[in-house]
């Protein structure tokens, strides 16, 4: 099992010390002499493994420790405690052979030169990563097609829109065909079409190369489309690590029964909590254990046009988990 995982993280922690002071002139003066320092545990003893070819969603509210973890995995940050191995390397050593095989994409970080077309920066990357010409051509052609970059890579980067820039950035970050991708909010601030394009591209890259992907996103659509497995982190600790479908099962004790009755003369409160009642459709929140009994009760007593049983929206489940209030 050991040798099969691409990323191994065990008891990984990262603490920062931050200076703290009250606002105002006197406090500023005082801080010249004496400073109060407070330890912040950004990541607090987390452990997980990623297997080859997996696409895993790394979820958590702002400040949960996602970016800190990604930075430790890619070698930008030195852990305070614990161990990390990525493709057998200690990321922090930033050996050439390690850096050749990974990439970190951070939503708003720009690695492309601003005033020249992206294709010129791509050629620099070709030199930096020592990509043989045929492979470079092939990969670039592939990316141009998948991301629809044809006209974009010949324009100065500064003339591109935010979404277009993200596309050319992602292409730059993957030109060396890394085996491990750390993606930090790759779709942040993009419109729906552009989000979908990037999502499809990541899925396609994963399918073609078998690369392992760990991605953070605030858009559940990204996670649902790409990730079978999710890891949820909050206040630096892992709250959940498993299949997305299990998350719903485990953290939501209720299902929603939606029905459209022929007549509307019954009080539905005896079947469950009425959470919505619009356009003649009624939504009832029912404890999971009671769903089959309540459904058959309703079908026996009420004549309905239509009845469905639904899981709660994934956003709601996640929100509930983070609120420390699993249903």
């Amino acid at each position, binding site marked *: 099992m050991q040798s099969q995982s691409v990323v191994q993280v065990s008891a990984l922690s990262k603490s920062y010390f931050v200076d703290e002071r009250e606002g105002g002139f006197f406090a500023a003066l005082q801080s010249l002499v004496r400073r109060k320092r407070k330890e912040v545990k950004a990541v607090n003893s987390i452990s997980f493994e990623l297997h080859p070819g997996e696409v895993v969603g790394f979820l958590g509210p702002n400040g949960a420790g996602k970016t800190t973890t990604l930075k430790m995995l890619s070698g930008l*940050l030195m852990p305070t405690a614990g161990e990390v191995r990525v493709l057998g390397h200690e990321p922090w050593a930033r050996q050439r052979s390690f850096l050749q095989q990974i990439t970190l994409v951070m939503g708003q*970080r720009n690695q492309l*030169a601003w005033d020249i077309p992206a294709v010129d920066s791509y050629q620099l990357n070709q030199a*930096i*990563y*020592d990509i043989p010409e045929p492979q470079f051509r092939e990969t670039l052609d592939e990316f141009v097609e998948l991301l629809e970059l044809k006209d974009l890579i010949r324009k100065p980067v500064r003339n591109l829109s935010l979404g277009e820039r993200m596309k050319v950035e992602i292409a730059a970050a993957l030109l060396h065909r890394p085996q491990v991708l750390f993606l930090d909010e790759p779709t942040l601030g993009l419109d729906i079409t552009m989000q979908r394009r990037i999502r499809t591209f990541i899925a396609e890259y994963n399918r073609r190369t078998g690369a392992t992907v760990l991605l953070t996103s605030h858009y559940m659509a990204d996670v649902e489309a790409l990730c079978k497995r999710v890891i949820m982190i909050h206040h630096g600790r892992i709250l959940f690590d498993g299949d997305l479908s299990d998350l719903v099962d485990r953290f939501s004790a209720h299902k929603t029964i939606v029905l459209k009755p022929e007549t509307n003369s019954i009080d539905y409160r005896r079947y469950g909590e009425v959470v919505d009642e619009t356009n003649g459709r009624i939504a009832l929140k029912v404890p999971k254990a009671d769903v089959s009994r309540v459904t058959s009760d309703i079908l026996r007593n009420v004549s309905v046009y239509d009845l469905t049983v639904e899981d709660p929206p994934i956003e709601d489940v996640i929100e509930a988990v983070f609120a420390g209030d699993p249903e």
Partner: protein
Amino acid sequence: MRVLRNVYLAQFRTYLAENFQYRVQLGISILGIMVEPVIYMIVWINVAEAQGGAVAGYTASEFAGYFVAWTVVRQFNIGWSPWGMEHRIRTGELSPQLLRPVHPFHIDTATLLGLKVVTSLALIPTIVLLTLLFRPEIHFVPWSLVAFLPSLILAFFLRHVLMYAMSLTAFWTTRVTAMFQIFFAFEFFLSGRIAPLTVLPEWAQRLAAALPFQWSLYFPLELVLGRLTPEQALAGLGTQAIWLVASVAMLLLIWRFGVRRYAAVGG
């Protein structure tokens, strides 16, 4: 080595592509290159004339020669701006550069070499113009001009590596301007920038001799002007090389601890 060569070539090309599109900038940089030496030239020519023709071994037209040669060496010894590195460290822009399997120093150096090509283009008309305006007097010595070439290359790398190393102090404190200003103040007076070192008092000349600054400006200038003996030239090249090796060692050391700190406190 092959990878590094390709990186240098690629970044060099990228830089040229980036900068050749600004024709106006080229015109402005001719003006910018001229302003500083013209001011010194006018001052020292006037001083020399007021003192009866010569000061500290330089006549008025030799001062003109000094500053015309100065204009060339100065363009070549421009190193990496420490404020650029400070900005990168403070904003975290350094992070993506750390993730590339090539040290940022190489890419920055290639950028500077590209800059040299661009400014060389502006330099030629500048030199012609200054020569027509100030009638400089330079006693060219052929062997000295040959020695000038390696001294210019060493001058560039010495100053560039020193400035790069200094810029890395931004790893420890993100407000490093004060430190840079001290560096540049010393350099200003002790490198030959505002005048030949011979105009300085004895003690200041001794101080200059103990510091690296003159080796990236004054020494190559003396070679152009043919003011050194072959022995002095050889010793000078040796001193440049020693300072360069020391600066590289310092750069590597500061980098090693600096990146460690960057990675400890967050990028």
